[in-house]
């Protein structure tokens, strides 16, 4: 896979890699992409894609108020919080 740019794809995936990781993962993924390329042999003309083995459509529930997690329970695993909100670095200058 000559056009597989590990640095670019890792950025898209939001995973910071060390240069050593880039080298190693890049080589391994090259091998894997070489293997999965065998799907090009299959004639898929006119074949519908399968997203789910049992597609259920328009699954809805009654519009009723039910119990939900208390606010502090929902926040309990937050790495940084203040005033009942998640704290993140500044997004807008």
């Amino acid at each position, binding site marked *: 896979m000559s056009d*597989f740019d*590990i640095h670019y*794809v*890792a*950025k*898209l*995936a*939001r*995973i*910071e*890699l060390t240069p050593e*990781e880039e080298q*190693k*993962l890049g080589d*391994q*993924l090259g*091998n*894997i*992409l070489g*293997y*999965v*390329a*065998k*799907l*090009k*042999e*299959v004639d*898929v003309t006119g*074949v*519908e*894609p*399968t*997203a*789910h*083995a*049992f597609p*259920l459509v328009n*699954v809805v*529930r009654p519009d009723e108020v039910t119990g939900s*997690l208390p606010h502090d*329970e*929902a926040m*309990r*695993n*937050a*790495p*940084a919080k203040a005033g009942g909100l*998640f704290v*993140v*670095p*500044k*997004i807008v200058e």
Partner: protein
Amino acid sequence: MLRQLTISELTGRLARRECSARDALRSCLDHLAQVDGQVKAFLSHDAADALAQAEAADRDLAAGVTPAEKPLLGVPIALKDVLCHRGQPLNCSSKILGQFVSPYDATVVERLKAAGAVVFGRLNMDEFAMGSSTENSAFWTTLNPWDTSRIPGGSSGGCAASVAASECFASIGSDTGGSIRQPASLCGIVGVKPTYGLVSRYGLVAFASSLDQIGPFTKDVRDSATILQAIAGHDRRDSTSVPQPVPDYAKALTGDLRGLRIGIVKEFNIGGLDPEVDAAVKLAVKQLETLGAEIVEVSLPHSDYAAATYYIIAPAEASANLARFDGIRYCARVDGRDPAELNSRTRGAGFGAEVKRRVILGTYVLSSGYYDAFYLRAQKVRTLIRNDFLKAFEQVDAIVSPTAPTAAFKVGEKSGDPLQMYLSDIFTISCNLAGICGISVPCGFTKSPKLPIGLQVLGKPFGEETMFRVAHAYEQSTDWHRERSPLA
């Protein structure tokens, strides 16, 4: 020994008041304290919480609650570290979740508890269920109770090892490409992957949402049927859960295979199949014939493409599902100057090598310019694979094969080569792609060292009754399931 009983034997004793739920739990916890240093199946367990559940079960038993009302009353059952258990830690054997504590119970946990089970422990696995050996766990590698120089299989390796070591009476895992059946096979026990949509995935940390299913690990087929009965059925909190009634699986365990047609797959005669595994499975097929089944050769022409299809679809779905581990709402955060840098650092530090490989692979096959060539094409081949099975099931009631191409391999033997590791799932992954059901039952041992071999029985979509019937009849006509590992 109490801990070595099956669930049906244990519930019989409990109902006759020959032992208490406390005794049953104690037998597991005492043994766990003795052998888990060697097996390393459990990441942790909350003995006090389990004891409180066992005491509640004893009060129910004293009040005359019957097995018909609570079929798992007093039975200690452990969980893979991928299922939410309220108030308990949850890590998916990853570093990224840090000190995460589950805020709610998964539907399967609710249902197990409603059936009276004593639910405890977090069982080791490959990180985020990605792997076939537990070597991808960020904590440690679980070892096979039959030979502790070998892996127990994966990703639910802790589930299989804990049951094979009699540290619990059963466990609950998840299967995306074989993660229940392969470790069950390698540890000499029974493991079931139900039909997609039969068991609610609510509270299961998602890996590949169109392939994941939850299922039991047990010592025999009847116990698996009992657990599946308790956890199956529609749940409105999982929109892919199928709204149809669950049949009575125990009724299917007739021991009789007359009138059934069972398929063997022409294309499964592959290189890399261990001769002892091949011989054991061929003997099992003969046994099925002796029991009255008619054996028919069927063809699954696209089998050779299943692994390639799986290793596009599963990473693609994983890359989307694992986007939630962003360091904002949970996770062991690594700070950055902006949210994007925070995300990248958190994920770079928190994910292990296999998770990084798959998330990056999945991101690539979904990215602009490659989507059609990889992901869409794989979904089309998936249709062909599913159609192959549906066509085969017009001729036969079930299909049998080896569960895994070899018995348990040595720790480190395949961990350096991800592609080699991927190919150890060759017999199990097409079942998930097709959305059918499958079970692994013990069908023999290699000679030296003595390692378990598993027979896979595949059933039609929602064909669990026939799948159980075939697996049970075979099991009951052999003694393989009575064998216990040296650490049991």
